[in-house]
């Protein structure tokens, strides 16, 4: 062994000590399960569920079917709308909080977080109770004479969208808040001093500087919204199916695990693509995750 390599291995020790546990954790709980999913996607389905270990491309050929393309497009559309609404509602909200004194801001953040203390199924059930045919919303509408007979809110695309937006809004606000909070007043003042109108300052200074927060908000809402299935299952009544529901069904009632795995791989690729796009605009290290 040459002297040089020995030295190099010496200097690597602290690095391994530091990164080792994290890497081990990531390998055990992220990499290996993901590789297993990819592996399963190339296997044959068992008649009663489970997997037979005969390699095949059947699942990927099935994915090429136009019905899956439609589901993916439908899911993407809903995820885009959810994300857009969360950004449009969340940004002004985050801005408002960030410009408040620290103690008020922390209280407002607290208010935002409180609903998350309850189980998400409880929150979904609450929406269902509010909007059911003989629920308070319909009773109020009837009493005010706005409608003549109860409106069927349950199991509609609209209610699913409402469920998605309310569920993901806090995750959009938090990263944007932490970005906006770092924004220095001096920057805005300098912009104004140099003659920029407020709208110009916002578009040319505030928005670009808070972009990492916005992009994190996009990632934190878009990706879960794309893969969610409980919200669509409960509020959509098993009729409004998105890609998350289809994946869940493959592992449940339809018993086609390889196809479920292949769909998950597809979802993974879409996610990776998003992160890749982000990396073209800014460095990953800048991404605000709270």
């Amino acid at each position, binding site marked *: 062994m040459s002297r040089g390599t020995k030295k190099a291995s010496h200097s690597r020790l602290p690095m391994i000590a530091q990164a080792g546990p994290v890497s081990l954790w990531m390998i055990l709980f992220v990499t290996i399960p993901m590789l297993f999913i990819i592996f399963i996607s190339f296997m044959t*389905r068992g*008649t*009663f*569920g*489970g997997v037979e270990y005969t390699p095949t491309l059947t699942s990927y050929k099935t994915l090429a079917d136009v*019905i*899956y393309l*439609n*589901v993916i497009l439908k899911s993407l559309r809903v995820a885009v709308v959810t994300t857009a609404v969360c950004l449009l509602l969340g940004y002004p909200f985050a801005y408002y909080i960030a410009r408040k004194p620290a103690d008020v801001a922390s209280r407002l953040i607290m208010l935002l977080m409180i609903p998350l203390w309850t189980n998400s199924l409880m929150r979904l059930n609450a929406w269902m109770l509010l909007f*059911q*045919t*003989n*629920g308070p919303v319909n009773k109020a509408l009837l009493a005010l004479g706005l409608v003549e007979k*109860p409106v*069927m809110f*349950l*199991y509609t695309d609209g209610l699913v969208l409402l469920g998605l937006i309310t569920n993901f809004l806090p995750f959009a606000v938090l990263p944007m808040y932490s970005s906006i909070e770092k924004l220095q007043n001096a920057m805005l003042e300098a912009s104004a001093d140099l003659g920029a109108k407020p709208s110009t300052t916002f578009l040319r200074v505030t928005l670009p500087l808070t972009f990492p927060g916005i992009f994190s908000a996009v990632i934190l809402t878009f990706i879960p919204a794309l893969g969610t299935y409980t919200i669509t299952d409960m509020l959509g*009544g*098993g*009729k409004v*199916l998105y890609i998350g529901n*289809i994946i869940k*069904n493959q592992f*449940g*009632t*339809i*018993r*086609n695990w390889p196809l479920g795995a292949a769909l998950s791989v597809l979802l993974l690729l879409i996610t990776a693509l998003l992160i890749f796009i982000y990396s073209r605009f800014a460095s990953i290290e800048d991404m605000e995750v709270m």
Partner: protein
Amino acid sequence: MKKALSLLIAFVMLFSLGITANAAERKELNIFMWSDYISDDLIANFEDEFGVRVNLSYMNDNADSITKLTAGAGSEYDLIMTCDAYMESLIAGGYLEELDLSQIPNSENINKAYWSEQNQKYCVPYLMNYIYVVYDTERCPIEITCYNDLIRPEMKGQIGSVDGARNLFPIALIALGYDPNSRDENEIKEAYEWLVKYNENVVAYGSTETNIVSGAISCMFTYDGNTAEAMAQLGEDNTLVVAPFTSDPVQLGFDLYVIPKGAQHMDLAYQFLNYICDPEVMAANLVDNPYSCPNDAAVAAASEEYRNGPAFDFDYKTNIFFQEDVGDAITIYDQYYQMLKVG
């Protein structure tokens, strides 16, 4: 210090002695079944009476118990719940222990019409359920007397339904005049087309009893147990009736217990099976689980309320069909079911 240490060790030893002695006394019975499907009192009484600990684990889907059984569940469970549709495959595959009915004398109470000779060797029926049509006489736009009524345009936005390929396809096949357990791809494809129309009328799959009580639907294709629950919730205001079907048969399914090959506590499994076949025990269980029951003596001993329940008030109880094992054709069903759901 030394004294304290030895005292501590002595304590630990004494304590662990107690634990091991206790463990040896209290044997464990491991059961895998649906959740909310057996009364807690029944389990507690059984534990007291026989000095046993019962560990219940729950399945989410019929496929779960099949996965367990085919993977060899004997080391983990002593009793597994499954349904009649899978018995043929499970027996053929040799996944089950053959039963010695002399160890289950109370099984005499079970009506043999619901318990084929083949099945008597391998399973004990627990409860059964009809999957039929129920509607609200005040809100449903039409009277329903056959499956084809469900796809009439008047029924749009009125129906709540159970889910699952092997529950939905049979009614379509019957409506089209085919065998409900068809293995013919063309027939299944036609059934799929029928179900597309059905799907248009369906408001939601699952939660049928909640939806009919809250007024979201006026008609449901569901289990008798769920109907009993909905009717009990409506109480005095109940306007639900079981649809007066004229000729279409309805599905009758069984949930039954099997002993997986190589089970560790066969003796306890037998004790448990005998216990649940006891008329008084099962009658008490029917209060919490108001499903149809194949144990005639238990039904006779059950409460008036159960026996006269409006959910069981229909006259075509013997015009039934069973879900049969369709073998590899299950993948054809799954494929069309997928298309139906994805649309």
